[in-house]
């Protein structure tokens, strides 16, 4: 262990910062004690190894005892390290509980809910209105953003719930009922396929496709293109649009068609349903996994699911999955 060489003036500073962040130092101690390897512990903590070593040294100074025996080959807990490990774990569990209680207490002021940016105005209004009827004392803070941003915010704890577009990475989240909304085709009025009241995807062969960049994460685009190919439509090119107006422009110009839920078509365009609804845009509520939702969160999920079904014409998705042996249990 190297000499720390700290001048007197700095000592009071670091004692102060350590007092403020004893919990953080103990978290480091527990991880190093579990790994008995500074490199692996640093990796788990998402930090570099030198600052981790410094934290352990500071903690040893503060507690005035050696926690680890470090030889060049291995790291081992000392007797006092073993004693302190259980205490540190106890403390960290209680700190987690304090944070959770604080979070729950905070939830009562306002409920922060992420929604897709392209959700219809009528749906947004119904969501706000219906929730106000159920919980007049609890305002909804709706935050429109792409699903990828909602996922990050849910993980950070800056959202209480989100209305997500699928597929997306739902690790660590619980999901409400999966709802599907049939996609149809947005075409220029007067184009040959627009003559039919209902289209098959194969009728679009030879056309380009324009998709919303913000509402179409890579996995969703991959799924959409696979479904299109399955039903006979392989777009000549896929244009990623940053904005609905750009999408509209490409459609009006006849450059590309868009696959979107039923909505009032802009002048010069028509919307046609697809025969047999082969494409479904899948949506669900999501919240951080843990206890089953209760109180305001449970109300929110119920209201949101109900509004999406009644106002956005979404219906529960029942897709049969035939598991193949090569992708079966533990295969």
């Amino acid at each position: 262990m190297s000499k720390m060489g700290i001048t007197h003036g700095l000592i009071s500073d670091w004692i102060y910062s350590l007092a403020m962040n004893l919990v953080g130092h103990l978290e480091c101690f527990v991880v190093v004690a579990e790994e008995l390897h500074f490199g692996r512990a640093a990796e788990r903590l998402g930090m570099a190894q030198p600052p981790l070593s410094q934290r352990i040294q500071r903690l040893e100074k503060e507690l005035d005892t050696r926690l680890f025996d470090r030889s060049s080959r291995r790291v081992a807990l000392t007797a006092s390290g073993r004693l302190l490990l259980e205490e540190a774990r106890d403390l960290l569990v209680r700190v987690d509980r304090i944070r959770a209680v604080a979070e729950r207490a905070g939830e009562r002021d306002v409920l922060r809910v992420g929604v897709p940016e392209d959700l219809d105005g009528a749906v947004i209004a119904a969501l706000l209105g219906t929730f106000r009827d159920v919980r007049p004392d609890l305002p909804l803070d709706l935050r429109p953003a792409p699903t990828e941003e909602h996922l990050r915010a849910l993980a950070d704890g800056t959202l209480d719930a989100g209305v997500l577009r699928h597929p997306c990475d739902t690790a660590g989240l619980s999901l409400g009922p999966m709802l599907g909304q049939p996609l149809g085709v947005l075409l220029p009025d007067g184009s040959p396929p627009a003559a039919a009241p209902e289209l098959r995807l194969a009728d679009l062969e030879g056309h380009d496709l324009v998709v919303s960049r913000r509402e179409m994460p890579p996995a969703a685009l991959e799924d959409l293109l696979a479904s299109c190919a399955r039903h006979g439509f392989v777009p000549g090119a896929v244009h990623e649009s940053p904005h609905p107006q750009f999408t509209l422009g490409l459609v009006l110009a006849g450059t590309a068609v868009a696959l979107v839920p039923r909505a009032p078509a802009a002048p010069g365009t028509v919307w046609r349903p697809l025969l047999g609804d082969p494409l479904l845009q899948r949506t669900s509520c999501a919240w951080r996994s843990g206890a089953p939702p209760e109180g305001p969160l449970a109300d929110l999920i119920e209201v949101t699911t109900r509004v999406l079904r009644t106002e956005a014409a979404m219906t529960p998705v029942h897709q049969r999955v035939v598991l193949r042996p090569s992708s079966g249990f533990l295969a």
Partner: protein
Amino acid sequence: MTAVIEGAFREAGVVGWLHAVDLDSGREIGVRPDESVVLASVFKVPLLVAFFRRAAAGELDPVEQVALPPGARVAGGTGTSVLLDEIRMSLRDLACMMITVSDNTAADTVLERVGLDHVNRTLTDLGLVRTRVTGSAGDLHASLMADAGVTDPADLWTRLTDPGVAGRLSALDPAVSSRGTPRELTRLLAAIWRDEAAPAPECAQMRRMLGLQIWPHRLASGFPYDDVLVSGKTGTLLTLRNEIGVVEYPDGGRYALAVFTRARSTAATHPRADAAIGTAARLAVQELRGWAS
């Protein structure tokens, strides 16, 4: 559409034969569907049918336990063929191994109980007169080794590129080897799916086994859809790669498929040839469904 399917075969470097039929409407599509092709392990499907017909007739007991001593293994890379110690298994579980993982030891054990003549009589009874099983998996292996003049199976592949060797291998000759036609094999599958190959409970057991086949690289690769059930049986013999099977869609559409290929390359590992079987099958099913879904 047949030209598109031919194109898919050509692009993968194989010659291909195909027959596809909608089990309900009878609509069909074929690429040389009436030419004779070598079955390879597809022979295990007529064997399966004969096994369950004899079981249903009470002529053999499907749950009879059979002991396979360590010395009695037929060449093969899967199932009981690779196990080292004595195995006890029922006849129908051996049949399951022969279908789900193409277990050669299991197949020859079942064939011994069923009898080659019964397999061919079954085919005749079903009106499949151009499909014949001429020997066991062990017989096929012995003929290959003798024709190629090798004693180590690993040498087969290296000898295959020697002048004249491929032409000498009777196992690859549909006049001598176990054989059928793509059309007759989809008729065999149709009989299993329509409960005509044997009594309904036995046909259900056959469909279950074919649905549990593990290989994802041929027929199943053409249908990467979670809601589609693919059942099948492969056949592989040097440059020959085959699979017959039934594809079932969530709307009830059912299609029997028989795809046989012969690769120009003598590579033992040839994923494009495997995938071409799935691609050709999908193109055929798309044609039969008319892009319904």
